[in-house]
């Protein structure tokens, strides 16, 4: 028996003119409006710091900043970037390492490093969204980022360093008694 025929492939969508800012430079590209941002970055522009892993927005390896907010670039299409400011991991350290990057280095917040650009982007978004985010706000920012190597031990150390560097509530988080932690609900 043969497997069922798939529907005929959709006709190729006509390209459109994408005009957006990428890491501070203005770019004009002719791309299909539905082309995924992750493909524009990794394939068309060969900016491979943004990673690809699940392609359904569950792992966070492909996170980028769009107008300062964290987005999964695997779920973002070209037309959604029109006129926006996109920042990738390559744009984070243009003026030297960001404090978030330094914290990852000092605390061993990664092993293989594949999830790291996405983690840094998500934390950067949290730091842009509010002044001096505390430990729990930073942790909340990593809801959509998976790491398979570290068990989040090093990443928790990063969060403690970032929150304690920044404000008082962070210092409380450093000394936070794990036993005083809240309920079993998740």
């Amino acid at each position, binding site marked *: 028996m043969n497997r069922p025929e798939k529907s005929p492939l959709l006709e190729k969508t006509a390209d459109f003119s994408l005009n957006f800012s990428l890491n501070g430079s203005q770019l004009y590209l002719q791309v299909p409006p539905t082309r995924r941002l992750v493909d524009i970055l990794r394939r068309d522009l060969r900016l491979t710091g943004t990673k690809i892993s699940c392609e359904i927005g569950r792992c966070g390896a492909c996170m980028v900043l769009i107008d300062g907010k964290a987005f999964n670039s695997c779920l973002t299409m070209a037309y959604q970037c029109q006129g926006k400011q996109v920042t990738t991991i390559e744009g984070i350290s243009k003026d030297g390492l960001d404090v978030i990057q330094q914290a990852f280095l000092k605390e061993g917040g990664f092993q293989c490093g*594949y999830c790291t650009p996405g983690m840094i982007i998500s934390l950067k978004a949290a730091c842009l969204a509010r002044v001096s985010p505390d430990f729990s706000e930073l942790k909340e920012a990593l809801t959509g980022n998976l790491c398979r190597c*570290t068990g989040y031990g090093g990443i928790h150390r990063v969060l403690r360093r970032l929150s304690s560097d920044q404000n008082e509530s962070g210092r409380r988080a450093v000394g936070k008694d794990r036993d005083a932690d809240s309920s079993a*609900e998740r």
Partner: protein
Amino acid sequence: MLLDRNRNGSEKQWRVRRDGKDKVTGGHAFLTDMGFPRMLYGRVLRSHYPHAIIRSIDLSAAEKLPGVAAVLFHKDVPGLNAFGIADPNQPVFCDSLVRYEGDALAAVAAETSEIAEEALQLIKVEYDCLPVVDSPEKALSPQAPQLHPEGNILHETEYVRGEIEAVFADCAMIVETTYETPRQMHTYLETEGGVFVPEDSGSLTVYAPTQHGYKDRMQLARILAVPEEAIRIISSPAGGSFGGKDELNVQPYGALLALRCGRPVKIHYSRSESVKAGLKRHPMTVMMKTGADADGKLLAHQVDIVSDTGAYATLGGPVLNFATEHCLGPYRIPHVHIKGKAVYTNNGVSGEFRGFGGNQVIFALEGQLDRLAEKLQLDPWELRRINVREPDDPGPLGQRIVPTDGPRQVWEGIQRSPLWKKRKRSDGTTGKVPWIKAGTGVALAMHGSGLGYGIPDPGGGSLRLNENGKIEAAFGHEEFGQGLLTTIEILLQDHFHCAAEDLEIVIGDTDRVPPSGSSTASRTTNSVWQALNNVREPFLAAVYRKAAKLTGIPEIRLQTGPGGIWTTADCGGDKKNLLKRVITYKQLADQGANEPVFSTKFHYPLTPDPIIGAHYLYTSIAVIAAVEVNLLTGMVKIAGLDHCVAAGPVINPPGYLGQIEGGSVMALGFTTMENAVMQEGYYTTKNLDTYLVPTIFDVPEFQQVDAVEELISGDDFGPRGVGEIGTVAIAPAIVSAIRQATGKWLTALPVSPEQLVAADAVISSYLQPEEADRKEKGRDN
């Protein structure tokens, strides 16, 4: 030593990873990030059915699609149309039969991945479906279709000592339980992939992550029918592996397509293709019957292991050997009978995965000890003490091993964990709300390192002063996140007192490194440590000889240091004070002929007793888990996990800590949530929306890792690897903690919240305490 940067002993080597900066800036080029001019994109056509006869394969429509450069199938394989590290019985391309849904039928290279995808859909395959053998039970039934020429059993083990049946009759207490473990997925964030580049010379360069570059080269040469020297394997870095990239994955397809097209070809699996075609941890059903006398002395232990090895062999046999050895743990048990079967099915291929068969049987064994202790009304930790091995005892299978007191050291050490205090006093209440119950559990394990008796397990490495004036150390190993580069850097700096910048560390490139064996089996740290010990003296002698000749300063007064060779003030013994740098490494390298290469080859430490799979070096771990179980939802929160590990000296503290923390959380997933579910031979968990791995909210915020570094006097085998030991004792500790919290013994992983939800009446009493109270009073009256 507590592994904490602020504690005594750790801070010295608490350094930024050698590959760190590139990893935080996005500059780190993973092999799947690479691109080349004129590069094509490759895709693989997977079977549409888990078990079927192939009637015909028609490639013609795909070949005609504009943009397609090549379409290959079984007739295009010049050499052996098969791969598999231990037993090459997995077809590169199936020709007449498909045995699982990940089987490959054809591969396409095209100008874009979209065209390649479209071409796959134009390949017409006609099948005759066959009954699907979707469980070992079905595979073992007499009527089952036979999946391989040798039948449905890949491998069997049996180990007997003593008189088990007679002794069971004398046991004061016997517990018999059947345990089941899930099909865990490695879930490396970087899926399998690579780029394959035909060189002008006619050779092929492979950029694809693996855990043993030379083994990939051997396997690929066999498939391509070319000499091994015509292939260069660049196998590092990888975005995680955990055993999963040890076997070939994209390599045969990329290599065949690139050579056919004469152009670079990139293949990078989508997550769903990775799920379908990639290896998993063997699901095992482990029956254990364990008997003890009234004092808790273990007398007899009967074990029956059945593993679902899936459609093909890969390392299913060695994994079963490992399980057979490790189901006895660090305990003295006089009467033993173990039987194991690795069974072929039409399920996804099971293979090598961190812990290598130990995780499954240690979960079962430690569960047995907890159950026995409860029945004998003994403290479960005391029961372990009563039965734990003596340092000079033989290994689990009776083989001679390097004497170790690790199990006793960690048995004691774990009691220093702050969680230990909770152990006795816990009566299940948390002082929060009545439906959240707390518990703690403890588990003990011993884990072999190296490949074991019967498998070649070579080590090696080389050292030279290279033309750039760097001390170059080369190993046939790979960095997939574990921190190997930093470990080598620390070892080299300990030997040569030089700066990190004076070093060039070369790994993962068969054209530039000597064979060193695999980067698996917790063997690499020990292997590189041995190699450097072997080459250090001849290297230094040559360097000093040359430096003395060039500077006129006697060799005895020279010492390697930052940037070059220094004169020293002799302070006696090994310790020397550096006075003045007299020649730089670069100046030394620039003088005269090329520096010689100092190489070493050796076999990984091996038991002298010819028992297949038996190990010689062991590490030990004790784990304490604290859980909180919500009886309304059945959800288990892991509130704490602390570890005491005995694996010899710690070389790289943050690396060691990271391996234990990360291994522990991977095992937390195995215990509480992970399962690649298959139904009738199809994966139903196709991506990370249904295959759940722990997030930052599922794990303890802090894990204490206590490393016992002291080895028994006379043990000069140095540091052992810790890549796996952190994963093996988590499940039994958590399940024991759940027992304490809820009174329920779970036997199947991952734990099922449904089993932990309280009975309706109990829930009502939680939610309407007053009403329940009234009813209670009413009854009283």
